[in-house]
């Protein structure tokens, strides 16, 4: 339960930066790439967290670079490399059957398979991510809002990118067991999008997204126990439900404020 809560909060807070940078697909690509890394490192009997994190960090930096270049084919290259990495992982598993973790769990998430080591890793990464977001709040905000101008105002954008890529890779690695490779991206993106619908203030968005992410994690896991479905799936389904509610709410609210504005204008006339 604690694990689900933390993973949800972690994905929520990281998701804000992912969504606002317009890199929503990065979570998807990265989780697939990391899956390959995880399997390879287990084959080479390297520690799962270290192997997957290093692999993930390198992929995150590469994807980031490819996005900045803006050359045609960059997104295709990302797609090919990350999917190839994923395919490599699957190939190795089906050949050697050495992956210590359940195949289904890796793909769709299984909160029951969580070990103490997993939990410690989640706690550690959550703390790390929150410290980074707190300490580098201004730099991250500026670089996310306007990368070039942030540079002109003296923000060391390259370092900020590196630190962020590291945090992102670590987030995906520790979330994999709970959420599953295929569903992490949604868990990262949805809380941020929901909170974007609810507020126009970046700090509020960050706070809402953390709370919503944590809530979805907790409640989603509860549902998965109760209904006996894959934990990743139930977290994502539950947060999608929240998304629909938020969408309806914001359209409704938009309509109300518009009516009020029209009334005000009439009053002025």
């Amino acid at each position, binding site marked *: 339960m604690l694990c689900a809560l933390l993973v949800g909060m972690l994905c929520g807070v990281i998701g804000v930066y992912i969504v*606002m940078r317009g890199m929503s697909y990065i979570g998807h690509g990265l989780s697939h790439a990391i899956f390959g890394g995880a399997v390879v490192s287990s084959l080479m009997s390297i520690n799962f967290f270290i192997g997957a994190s290093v692999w993930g960090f390198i992929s995150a930096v590469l994807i980031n670079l490819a996005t900045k270049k803006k050359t045609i084919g960059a997104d295709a290259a990302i797609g090919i490399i990350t999917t190839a990495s994923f395919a490599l992982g699957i190939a190795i598993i089906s050949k050697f059957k050495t992956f210590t973790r359940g195949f289904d769990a890796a793909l769709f998430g299984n909160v029951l398979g969580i070990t103490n080591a997993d939990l410690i890793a989640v706690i550690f990464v959550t703390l790390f991510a929150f410290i980074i977001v*707190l*300490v*580098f*709040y*201004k*730099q991250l*905000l*500026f670089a996310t*809002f*306007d990368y*070039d*101008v*942030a*540079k*002109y*105002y*003296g*923000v060391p954008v390259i370092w900020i990118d590196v630190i962020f890529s590291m945090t992102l890779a670590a987030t995906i690695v520790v979330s994999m067991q709970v959420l599953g490779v295929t569903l992490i991206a949604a868990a990262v993106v949805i809380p941020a999008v929901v909170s*974007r619908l609810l*507020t*126009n*203030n*970046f*700090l*509020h*968005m960050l706070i809402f997204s953390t709370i919503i992410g944590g809530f979805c994690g907790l409640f989603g896991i509860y549902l998965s126990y109760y209904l006996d479905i894959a934990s990743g799936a139930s977290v994502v389904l539950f947060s999608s439900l929240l998304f629909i509610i938020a969408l309806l709410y914001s359209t409704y609210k938009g309509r109300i404020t518009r009516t009020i504005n029209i009334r005000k204008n009439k009053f002025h006339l």
Partner: protein
Amino acid sequence: MLYQSQNSLSEILIQFDSVSGGYEGEMTLNNINLIIKKGEFIGMLGPSGSGKTTLLKSVLGDIRIYSGEIIINGKDEYKNELNIGYVPQLETIDWNFPITVRQLIEMGMIRTSKYFPWIKKEGKLAVEAISNRLGLEELMNRQIRELSGGQQQRTFLGRALVSNPDVLILDEPTSGVDIRTKEEIMAILNSLNHQGVTILMTTHEINSVASQLPRVICLKNSIIADGSPNEIFTEENFYATYGATVKTIEHDGSKFVIEML
């Protein structure tokens, strides 16, 4: 000319020495020679794609230089220690970003207030002072999309000004605003200039903005003309810059340009 620079212009702040540069092999800036002194107020004219934004960014060290050098305050542009305030062309802004006027202006303090989300007391006072000066105090909690064009320009100007810059670089600060707001923005810039801030700005407005400045540069990848409007507002210069035929007239000691279609 309406806006007059200070008299004692001696100290060289920015110097372009036969600079050629651009993006990935393209020669956007071609053999630029330019000296900007402390306290100057300079406008830059030129057609779309002539390299105005590129020239501004080269001062900020963000453009690849193929030959020549840019010296800023005695150092090369990558080691620049001047406090430069930059106002980007508003077309480049992501208006959907959930950020308020206050949060945007606070961004400008990043050099002095680096870590953690909160800012110091002096910082808060500075933000308050600048927003009052720019008439933004009522709008501090608005999201940036919910502003008029003039208010948006003033917000981004606020971000550039909040850290008391020595140099202000503005990319089309008067685009998308009405005549009165334009006048207000230009009056603010003029008074800053009189407090000693060096200003370099681009504009598309020849008569209402450029003709009022003490010094104007016409750019079309290279510098076509550089001087006071009275010296450089000639039919030949405008033809060389824009490829358009214009007529110049004089009124009240200022030169203006009439488009001939």
